[in-house]
């Protein structure tokens, strides 16, 4: 893979590590946004333009903003007197290292990845639209319902009850 992909991957990993390590919560959210942008660059370099643009639009433009607003609404931004991590953090890191290590081992030693590298596929948005409305129309309707339900649910859950004053 070219140097551009390496740079994008490095940016994503640094953003991910940063979002898990910073003490200040809002810095974590910004590092997460950086890692989303890095991932969008990875998608563009792999030839999936639509997903890259959708990633920026949805994740950076909506999810990161949601996370930041939720951080502001819960007012727990900078806690200097509390330790950074929970008590059993060593176990957590060990579990994560084990999980990712075993996954990488499986990937590197498997036969699936040994195949020939095909040419860069071209994806037209029209083909994507035809598949969405053709083979995957039930999934499309399902995700529409899901998004509507989650929108209504989120509004109802976070609604300030009026009688609790």
């Amino acid at each position, binding site marked *: *893979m070219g140097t551009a992909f390496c740079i994008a991957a490095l940016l*994503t*990993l640094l953003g*991910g590590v940063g*979002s*898990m390590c910073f003490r200040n*919560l809002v810095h*974590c959210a910004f590092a*997460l946004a950086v*890692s*989303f942008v890095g*991932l969008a660059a*990875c*998608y563009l370099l*792999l*030839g*999936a333009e639509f*997903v890259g643009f959708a990633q920026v639009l949805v*994740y950076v433009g*909506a*999810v990161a903003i949601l*996370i930041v607003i*939720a951080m502001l609404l*819960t*007012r*727990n931004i900078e806690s200097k007197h*509390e330790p950074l*991590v*929970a008590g059993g*953090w060593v*176990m*957590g*890191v060990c*579990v*994560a*290292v084990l*999980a*990712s290590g075993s*996954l*990488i081992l499986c990937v*590197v030693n498997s036969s699936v*990845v040994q*195949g020939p*590298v*095909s040419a*860069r596929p071209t*994806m037209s948005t029209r*083909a*994507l639209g035809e598949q969405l409305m053709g083979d995957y129309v039930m*999934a499309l309707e399902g*995700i529409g319902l*899901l*998004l509507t339900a*989650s*929108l209504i649910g*989120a*509004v109802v*859950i*976070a609604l*300030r009850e009026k009688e609790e004053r």
Partner: protein
Amino acid sequence: MSPLAQCLSFSCLLFGVGLAGALTRRNAILVLVGIELMLNAANLNFIAFWRFGPHPEQLTGILFAIFSIGIAAAETAVGLALIITIYRHRGSTNLDDLTSLKG
């Protein structure tokens, strides 16, 4: 390493980072941030298999990634609404303070 193996190992690394964060940080919102990183790593897996797999003209990987992005957005919205409500009831988003199921 073939390009597919490189992409997959990178996504496994990212998954590990997200998992480590979700398991170790105390703040509930940061657990959600870790979950987002894990979902993104899985998306990258799908796109990598679409790019280097046998049938890229079927667009399966891309469609799965698009649906996954939509579902992640919905799940983030509901999860954050829950955290905000919990903060209003309990006064804290620290996971160590949210240890009792009693209301």
